[in-house]
Each structure stands twice: as structure tokens, then as C-alpha cells.
């Protein structure tokens, strides 16, 4: 009644009168409970005077019997949410609570109510409460003293945090406030299993840390506590202390830390030198870093000494001698400590490197073994990388500049060392040195380039050579002149040198040159030098008549591809590349495809499948990042070349014969293969580039894909068709062309000599449509599902399902701007898996395997989380699939079952007998991948309940003895892991 205004609260109180004044505390409690419930529902409607009286009443009731108190608190909570509470009342309520109620003797829920009242008041009456001064703080300290429940603690911690951050007066109670909170440190709390409140240990740790690290006033109490807890045996306590220390450093200054620095340092040092745990070590280093940063940041008054200096001196004193010990026992921990300190500020960096760098350089010359030198150089590298972080070096200050000569000589010495490991570190150091502006003098720079050339070309070990190329690639944009002037000509010379011993060595040297040329092309000016060299080399190889030159061409194409990828970031560079490379490749291919070329042998290698396949990514990568205007210019040339034989834009455009790839005729077979290059180009264009004569092009491609006898050409034409269809704007034109395609596919699928071609075309078109969620896609998929039952085309169709799911490397992927919806695999899965299962059950014995194979391809490519929820339904089918002889099916089934074993052990344990038998028999499969997957499944079986497994233990252990002696190391590795885990099953100490 009160809510809709028909009753006033006063009337209610009067009506309850007898109840509220009853002598039986239980009855009184009931009365107040009712009143409080009403108030909780309608506190927002109360008048100011009503509130006043209610507050006085409730305050008075606080002295009442303990049975009544919970309801009283509820009522006060309702009142604390009133907006019309007159000034002064909040203070008086709190005072009453502080005085009359012994909070910690209440139940958890009632304590929670008290905290809520306080929080409400703090939210709305901040000024009034501050008027209470330190009494408020003291009152609250008494309230929360001894709190044990994590739910209440979270609220209480929040209140304390607000008290501190909103600057309530702490008065003389700083220590008390600290005591009442720090007694929970470090938090040791494990949420009970199936805890409905969802409070994690982490929540408590973080909220407590927020308090402890919120004010410098706690420093004198907190830091000793942290030091003590760092010495704890509990790793969690250590980590918590260290993290809290790190957090404190953000607000502390030098004054707070001053007296504790020596003991902090000794604790940190001890932990880093002795710890077994990487986590503790990392936290120690972070804490040291924070300490140094804090000291470097502090503003100094004129009469105080700079603590940073003395602190760093301490560190240096304790660490430097470890760097010099001949046995190098504690070098790494020392170096890490020094680096953590040096990373804190530029000042600390100078201070430390001034001492350490000369020391390390000296040590390098003292130690002669390359493994020791490697360690020293790695430490040196750590310091150099820190310098990188500070960016520009100031001329007068940097120690590094003073030591330039010796640093360089050490690094160069490492580069010539026979040890590969040392070389690798040297190369990394070189990269860092190069990135420090102004560090390397021009003469040194030339030396650097020479070293890199030598390592890239002549070093036996491929790791070093690879690393040198990478280094060259990352330094080249910084010093383009040196690299294009020195490295590119050297590499060109090497490429052109015709050596007598055209043996294996020469071959691999050439390949390295090609790779190095590609690696170093990371700057536009260098690209302009290297691309002509690469193309020149390609022409040379084409003219040669050696047998191996197809492989050489592939290598050149790979290098060109890499350059193309590096060009994509820069528009100008990209256009240059496109303009230079694409016409040149087309011209060379055309030349080779001319039927009556003068030399019948010459250049035919260029038309081999693998060479064309290697050219595809080059053209594709050169096209994808073109700007729309430039792409439009280029596309008109290329399309008219293929449709009309228009060759005028090619660099050498005098061909003996016309280019008509879409015409019939025996002698044009080789011209048709160049459709691959057309595909690479048109399928990589950005969406918004219109393709001229697209309709005609599509019809020609369609005809080509259905008629030609060469599988390479038909497949490529089908892919090109699919690539264009995928990007084609929806509408009538698209529907027409698709109808046309269907009219060609259906009759040829039904019978005749072209069934395979028709299937290939169908697969690619289906893929193109499924990717863009085109409505026709599901119709085509059904057609494919039907073909699974075909004895002739069934197996090929089953394999085709993998084509639908896998991302193809050259067309129809995101990189070439295809229209790919993100969830298409999941959608395909939910749409088609039931049909596959149904088809499987209805199929004859000779084609059942096709359905299983199709299904396994789909399952293999769907994200595992999706699978795990769906798989139980498919479980019986999967168990049947394990007996299938096809190893693709076996493998994908095993891969599906393995996560299921880990995540749904209860369901799986029903089938344990079948699983054990099948898995064990598959461990002797002839295919390595199946053996490995089977062993992983046997391993995963151990996550089933032990009681289920124990009957099989002896059998499994016996059976796993055989794969321990497998001929493949990777199989043995899995066998060892699985068998070890089975041994531990049910034995003590697992």
C-alpha cells in the first residue's frame, strides 16, 4: 500500500505499533523486519521528515536485542539509499553503528549489510563523512577488524581503498589501518569447488594489492613485511610480495624506500641467484626494474644524496665479480639483474654500462672457447638492445660510442668464428648495432656489408646464411645506399659468373645469391636494382638448354615472389614492380609458347607445370595491393592480350605468330597453358576493379574448362572461372552465367569422356559459391553429395570435400580479395554433416568409404571447439570409421577423437574397450602420421577415470613396447610419452 501512496509510512508504523513495542524480542524483530522490507521497496518515495524519524527510531533500535539487529540493519540500508536524507544523519547513523554494534559478531550477511551502508554513504555523503575526521577511519577499522569471509573482504577492501584514494583523514590510525588490511597478506585462499559466488583468489590479491600500494604512508610498515614474505618458502607468497613491491614503486619516492634499499637488494639478489622458478626470477627482475625506475624518477631536494647512484653501486659491486669468475657460474643471473636495473632509466643505463661494457669486452678476449664467448656476447647483446630502447644516443654521454671500436671488433670477431652459435649471436648483435643511428662509421658499415655477403653466400651452415640474409634485409632500409652500391653488384657478379665447375656447389651458390637478392630488397631504391637483375637471370636461364633449369626458374620465381611481398607495403614500389615484372613474365611465357620458335628446345622449360605454378604467386602478389586506378589500367592490357592477342604493351612484342589461347587447334595447346598466368592476374584484383569484357572472358573460360584434354589447363581454367564468379556482383548477369555453367556441367557429368573435367569445374564453382553464401551453393553441394554414391567419381568427389574446406594457395582466399565469409566452414558443417551421415547409412558397402572420407575432410577443418559439442552425436560413426582402411579417414578420425578424450572423458569411457583395441591396432599402421595420432590417442586415454582404465593397463603397456622400437623418431617420442603415462596410472605418486 505504501508504494502506491494509499498508506503513509507513519500509518504503517502506527499499525505496527503493538508489534514494534512488543516485549518479546522475536516479535519485535518480526515487526521491524516487515517495516524494513517495506522501506527497501519504497525508500525513494519517503519525505525528509519521515526519514528523520525513521532514522532516529532505527538508531535507537540498534541497542536492542541481538535478534532484532539484522532487521534494523536492513532498514538502515534502505534509508542509506534515500536521497532526501537530511545533513548530519549519515554521520549519526554511522556513529551509532560504530558505537552500538559489534559487527564481527554478526552473521556474514549482516556484516555485508553494514559494509553496504558504509559504501552507500561514502558514495553520496562524502563531504559529511570527511567531517568526521579520523573517527570515521577508526570506526571502520573496528568494523572490519577480524573479517574472514572473502565476499565481505572484497567490499571492505574497496572501502579502504576509497578511504585512502579519496583522501579521508587517516589521522593517527595509519598503522591500525595498515594492520587491519595487511594481516591478510599474502592472500592464501582457494575457492571451494562449485563456489556459487565465483570469487577467485586473484580478485582478493588484486584488491588487497590496490590498498597496500595505494599510499606512500604505508611504506614504513609494508616494505619490511614484503621483505619478510619474500623470504617465505611459499612460492605464491614470494610472487605476491614481489608484484606488490613492483606496484608500490609506482607511488613511492626515494624517501620511502631509502632505509630499506640494502635489504631489498639483498633479498632480490638472493632470489635471482638461487631460485629454481622462472616465474620468481621474472618477478624479481621486474621489481628491481621498478625500484630503479622509482629512484630515477624521484625529485631530489638539494641536500639529499642521490640514492640511485649508491643503489646502483651496490648492484654493480655485487654483480660485477660474477661476470669475471672464470667458471662463469652466476653470469646469467648477474647479467639479468644488471640489465633489469639498466632498463629502468637512461641515467641508470649510463651508470651501469660505464662499468659493465668494458668488463664484458675484456672478458670476451680472455675467454677462448666459443661457447663462453657466445655467453658473453649474448649478455653484451642484451645491453645493446637496451640502448635501442632509448633511441638516439647523445654524443657526449654514451659509453657505447667511446667503446665503438672495441665493440665492433668483438662483433666482427664473432662473425668469423667457426662456431655457428657464436656467429648467430654476432649477426643479431650486428642488427642491433646497425639500428643504432650514427653508431657505425661508413667504413665500418662497408665492413658489415662485406661480412653479411660472406656469411650469406659462403657460410656452410644454412642457419647462419639465413640469419645473415635476414639481417641484411632489416638493415637495408636504414642504409639503402651502401647495400645497393655494395651488396647488389657483388651478388650480380656471382650470379653471372660462369664457372667451369658447374657442380652442385655452384648451383647452391646461385640459389643463395637469388635468395640474398630477395632478402635485401626491403627498400624501394634497392628493389629497383634487384628486380632487373633477377629478371635478367630468368632470361638467361630460359635461354640455357640444361636439364635442371626448370628448377632454377622456380628459384628465381620464389625470389621474385618474396620481393613482391616486401613491395606490397609501399604503393610506388608496388607499381614499379607490377609494371616491370608482369609484362616481362608474360612476354617470356608467350615467347616460349609460340609453336614455331626457332629453337624447339629453347624455353620449353618455362611451360612446365611447376614453373608456371611458381609464376602464379609472383603475379598474384604483384597485383593484390595495386591501387584501383593503376589496376584498371593494367587489367585492360592483360584481358585484351588473352582475348584478342593484343601484344603491344609487352616489352618484346615481335612474335612470329598470333596469341590465341581460347581458339581451337592442336598447335595452340601450349598457349592455353598460359591461362594460369591470366588466373593469377584477374583473380587477385581488388573488388572494385571492373574487368572489361568479363562476360566474354567467363564464357571462354567455361568452354576451355570443359573441353580441353590437358588436366592442368582445365583445372586452371575452372579455378579462374570460380575466382571470377566468386567476386562477380550478384544479379541477373551472374545468374545467367551460372545457368550456363550448369547446362554444361550436368550433361558431361552424366556420361561421356569429360566426367572428370566436369567434376573439377563443379567442385571449384561450388567452392566459389559456398564461400560467399550464394543460395545456389547448397544446391551444388547436394549434387556433390549425390556423386559420393557414384562408383566411378565417388572417391574423387570425397577428396574434393577437402578442396572445399581447405584454403587454396592461389585463388579464392582472403589475400586475393575473394569474398570469403568468416564462418563458412561451420555453416558447411552444420548444413551438410547430417546429410553425409544419412548418406552413409543409406549407401551400399562399396561406396560407404566415400562418405566417411568426405566426412573426415569436413571434420578435419572445422575448429575444435565447434566439434567437441557436436561430436558425441557422431561418436558411433567415428568408431566405425576407425576400422576403415583408408588412412586419411583413420587420421582425421583419430584427430577428432583425441580432443574428445580430453574434454568428454565420461562419454568416452563407455566405449573404452573398442577404443583401446582400435587405437592399439592402429599403432602399427604403415603410415607414420596415423601411428603418431594413434599413440597420442592412447596417451589421451589416460585422462579417463583410472578405474575404467586399470583392467587394460598391462595390455596397453605390453602393446606399447613395439612402437618404442619404431623406425621413426617422432613415433618413438609419442610412444615414450604415452607408455610413461600408462605406467603411472594407478601407482603411487602420480
Amino acid at each position, binding site marked *: 500500500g505504501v508504494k502506491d501512496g494509499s498508506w503513509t509510512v507513519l500509518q504503517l508504523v502506527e499499525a505496527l505499533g503493538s508489534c514494534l513495542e512488543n516485549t518479546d524480542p522475536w516479535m519485535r524483530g518480526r515487526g521491524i523486519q516487515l517495516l524494513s522490507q517495506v522501506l527497501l521497496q519504497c525508500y525513494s518515495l519517503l519525505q525528509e521528515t519521515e526519514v528523520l524519524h525513521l532514522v532516529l527510531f532505527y538508531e535507537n533500535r540498534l541497542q536492542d536485542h541481538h535478534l532484532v539487529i539484522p532487521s534494523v540493519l536492513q532498514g538502515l540500508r534502505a534509508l542509506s539509499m534515500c536521497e532526501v536524507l537530511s545533513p548530519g544523519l549519515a554521520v549519526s547513523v554511522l556513529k551509532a553503528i560504530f558505537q552500538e554494534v559489534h559487527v564481527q559478531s554478526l552473521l556474514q550477511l549482516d556484516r555485508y549489510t553494514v559494509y553496504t551502508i558504509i559504501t552507500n554513504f561514502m558514495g553520496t555523503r562524502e563531504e559529511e563523512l570527511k567531517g568526521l575526521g579520523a573517527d570515521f577511519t577508526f570506526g571502520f577499522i573496528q568494523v572490519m577488524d577480524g573479517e574472514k569471509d572473502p565476499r565481505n573482504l572484497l567490499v571492505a577492501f574497496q572501502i579502504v581503498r576509497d578511504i585512502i584514494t579519496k583522501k579521508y583523514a587517516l589521522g593517527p590510525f595509519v598503522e591500525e589501518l595498515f594492520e587491519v588490511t595487511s594481516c591478510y597478506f599474502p592472500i592464501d585462499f582457494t575457492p571451494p569447488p562449485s563456489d556459487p559466488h565465483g570469487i577467485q583468489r586473484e580478485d582478493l590479491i588484486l584488491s588487497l594489492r590496490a590498498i597496500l600500494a595505494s599510499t606512500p604512508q604505508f611504506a614504513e610498515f609494508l616494505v619490511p613485511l614484503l621483505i619478510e614474505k619474500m623470504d617465505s618458502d*611459499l612460492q605464491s607468497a614470494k610472487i605476491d610480495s614481489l608484484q606488490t613491491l613492483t606496484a608500490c614503486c609506482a607511488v613511492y619516492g626515494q624517501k620511502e624506500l631509502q632505509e630499506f634499499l640494502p635489504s631489498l637488494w639483498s633479498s632480490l639478489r638472493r632470489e635471482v641467484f638461487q631460485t629454481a622458478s622462472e616465474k620468481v626470477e621474472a618477478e624479481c627482475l621486474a621489481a628491481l626494474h621498478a625500484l630503479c625506475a622509482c629512484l630515477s624518477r624521484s625529485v631530489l631536494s638539494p641536500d639529499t644524496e642521490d640514492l640511485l647512484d649508491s643503489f646502483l653501486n651496490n648492484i654493480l659491486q655485487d654483480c660485477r665479480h660474477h661476470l669475471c669468475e672464470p667458471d662463469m657460474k652466476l653470469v646469467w643471473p648477474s647479467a639479468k639483474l644488471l640489465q633489469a636495473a639498466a632498463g629502468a632509466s637512461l641515467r641508470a643505463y649510463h651508470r651501469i654500462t660505464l662499468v659493465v661494457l668494458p668488463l664484458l669486452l675484456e672478458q670476451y678476449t680472455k675467454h677462448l672457447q666459443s661457447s663462453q664467448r657466445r655467453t658473453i656476447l649474448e649478455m653484451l647483446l642484451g645491453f645493446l638492445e637496451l640502448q635501442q630502447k632509448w633511441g638516439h644516443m647523445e654524443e657526449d654521454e654514451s659509453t657505447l660510442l667511446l667503446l665503438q671500436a672495441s665493440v665492433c671488433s668483438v662483433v666482427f670477431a664473432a662473425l668469423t668464428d667457426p662456431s655457428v652459435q657464436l656467429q648467430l649471436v654476432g649477426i643479431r648483435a650486428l642488427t642491433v648495432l646497425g639500428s643504432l643511428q650514427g653508431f657505425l662509421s661508413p667504413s665500418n658499415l662497408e665492413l658489415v656489408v662485406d661480412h653479411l655477403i660472406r656469411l650469406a653466400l659462403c657460410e656452410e651452415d644454412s642457419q647462419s646464411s639465413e640469419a645473415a640474409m635476414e639481417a641484411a634485409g632489416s638493415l637495408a632500409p636504414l642504409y639503402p645506399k651502401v647495400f645497393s652500391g655494395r651488396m647488389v653488384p657483388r651478388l650480380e657478379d656471382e650470379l653471372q659468373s660462369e664457372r667451369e665447375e658447374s657442380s652442385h656447389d655452384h648451383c647452391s651458390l646461385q640459389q643463395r645469391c637469388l635468395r640474398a637478392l630477395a632478402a635485401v630488397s626491403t627498400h624501394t631504391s634497392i628493389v629497383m636494382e634487384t628486380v632487373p637483375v633477377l629478371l635478367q637471370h630468368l632470361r638467361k636461364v630460359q635461354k640455357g638448354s640444361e636439364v635442371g633449369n626448370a628448377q632454377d626458374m622456380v628459384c628465381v620465381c620464389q625470389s621474385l615472389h618474396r620481393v613482391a611481398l616486401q613491395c606490397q607495403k609501399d604503393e610506388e614500389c608496388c607499381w614499379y614492380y607490377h609494371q616491370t615484372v608482369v609484362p616481362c613474365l608474360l612476354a617470356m611465357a608467350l615467347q616460349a609458347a609460340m609453336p614455331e620458335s626457332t629453337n624447339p628446345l629453347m624455353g620449353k622449360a618455362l611451360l612446365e607445370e611447376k614453373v608456371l605454378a611458381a609464376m602464379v604467386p609472383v603475379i598474384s602478389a604483384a597485383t593484390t595491393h595495386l591501387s584501383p586506378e593503376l589496376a584498371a589500367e593494367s587489367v585492360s592490357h592483360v584481358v585484351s592480350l588473352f582475348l584478342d592477342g593484343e601484344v603491344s604493351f609487352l616489352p618484346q612484342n615481335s612474335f612470329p605468330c598470333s596469341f590465341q589461347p581460347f581458339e581451337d587447334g592442336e598447335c595452340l595447346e601450349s598457349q592455353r597453358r598460359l591461362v594460369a598466368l591470366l588466373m593469377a592476374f584477374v583473380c587477385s584484383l581488388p573488388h572494385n576493379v571492373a574487368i572489361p569484357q568479363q562476360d566474354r572472358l567467363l564464357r571462354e573460360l567455361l568452354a576451355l574448362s570443359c573441353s580441353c584434354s590437358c588436366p592442368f589447363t582445365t583445372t586452371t581454367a575452372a579455378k579462374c572461372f570460380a575466382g571470377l564468379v566468386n567476386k562477380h556482383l550478384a544479379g541477373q548477369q551472374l545468374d545467367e552465367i551460372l545457368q550456363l555453367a550448369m547446362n554444361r556441367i550436368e550433361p558431361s557429368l552424366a556420361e561421356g569422356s569429360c566426367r572428370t573435367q566436369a567434376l573439377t569445374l563443379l567442385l571449384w564453382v561450388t567452392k566459389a559459391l559456398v564461400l560467399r553464401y550464394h543460395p545456389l551453393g547448397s544446391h551444388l553441394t547436394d549434387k556433390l553429395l549425390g556423386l559420393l554414391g557414384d562408383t566411378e567419381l565417388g572417391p574423387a568427389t570425397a577428396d574434393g570435400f577437402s578442396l572445399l574446406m581447405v584454403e587454396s594457395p592461389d585463388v579464392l582466399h582472403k589475400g586475393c580479395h575473394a569474398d570469403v565469409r568468416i564462418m563458412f566452414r561451420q555453416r558447411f558443417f552444420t548444413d551438410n554433416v547430417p546429410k553425409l551421415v544419412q548418406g552413409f547409412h543409406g549407401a551400399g558397402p562399396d561406396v560407404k568409404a566415400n562418405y566417411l572420407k568426405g566426412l573426415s575432410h569436413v571434420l578435419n577443418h572445422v575448429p575444435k571447439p565447434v566439434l567437441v559439442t557436436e561430436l558425441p552425436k557422431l561418436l558411433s560413426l567415428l568408431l566405425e570409421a576407425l576400422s576403415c582402411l583408408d588412412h586419411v579417414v583413420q587420421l582425421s578420425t583419430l584427430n577428432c577423437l583425441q580432443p574428445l578424450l580430453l574434454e568428454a572423458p565420461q562419454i568416452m569411457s563407455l566405449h573404452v574397450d573398442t577404443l583401446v583395441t582400435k587405437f592399439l591396432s592402429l599403432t602399427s599402421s604403415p603410415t607414420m602420421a596415423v601411428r603418431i595420432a594413434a599413440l597420442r590417442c592412447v596417451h589421451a586415454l589416460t585422462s579417463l577415470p583410472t578405474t575404467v582404465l586399470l583392467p587394460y593397463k598391462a595390455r596397453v603397456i605390453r602393446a606399447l613396447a613395439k612402437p618404442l622400437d619404431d623406425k621413426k623418431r617422432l613415433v618413438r617420442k609419442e610412444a615414450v610419452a604415452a607408455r610413461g603415462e600408462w605406467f603411472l596410472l594407478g601407482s603411487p*605418486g602420480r
Partner: protein
Amino acid sequence: MVGPGPSGMAPLENANPLIYRRSGERPVTAREEDDELPDSIDDREIFDISPPAFLNPAHLIRSINDPEHPLTLEELNVVEQVRVKVNDAESTVAVEFTPTIPHCSMATLIGLSIKVKLIRSLPDRFKLDVHITPGTHVSEHAVNKQLADKERVAAALENSHLLEVVNQCLSARS
């Protein structure tokens, strides 16, 4: 439920061991992924052993935990690749291990763990020999003798307390 909780633990016998860098996972080569070819050994230390020797026990025992330290034996340099000898043709494996300190009381247990791990991880045909690196432990001979005695090893594994400790050493690091 919440509150400070200290816990007492006996101080470690060798609290400050020398720690070595781990050598990392062995990279998988293209050859190893080829189904047809058997993997011959490529460890430099056992390089001269005639093919088709292919076992690398150092790899198997690298991850055994030392009962006294929560580090792997490799990090403590208790087991080094150079001290592992395999002869695949003759089916023998010899492992030398180096206790962290000469009077390490855990030497027998470390040896036992290594031996058990090898028994579980190698084909039956291998003859195992696990012993202490000569001159690195005070009671070297006694320990070696115990480890070489098949019956003693078998008996030790009947002892459920001992088996528990060994299994703890062998279970993967958490």
C-alpha cells in the same frame, strides 16, 4: 578461509645449485617427417655409431625431475648428452650421471629414476647400464653396485614409498 599461512620446510641440502641452460626441444627435420626413411642418429656425441642407430636416451631422460630440486636433471647438468652412449646395433645404452655435489644423498634415487625411465622408454632388447660419472661422488661404487643389481632394482620398485618418489620424479612438470 583467508589469512596468512606460513609453512615450514626442511632446508635443502644443496640450496644453491649451478643452473645450466636447457637445450630446448629438438627441431623436427624434413627427413624425419618422411615416412619412408628410417631416422638415423644425428647427435654429434654418438655420431660415430654405425647406422641405423637411432636412439637418443639423452632426449628421453632430459625431463626427469631431481627429487631434491624442482629442476630437471638437464638444467642441473646431472645428465649430459656427452655422457650418454648408445650402440643400437648391439642394443646397449650406457648413461653416466653426475650428482650435484659429491656427498649428495639422493644419488641412488636419481640413478634409480633414470634407470626406471629407461626401462619404461626403451625396447626390451636394450641392455642398460646406469652409473655415476667416475670421481664425482664419495660412495660411487656402492651406488653403482646397487643400480647394477637387477634384483635390488626390482625389489626397490616393490616398495611403494620408493615407487611413489620415483613416479613423482618421472611425472611431467606441472
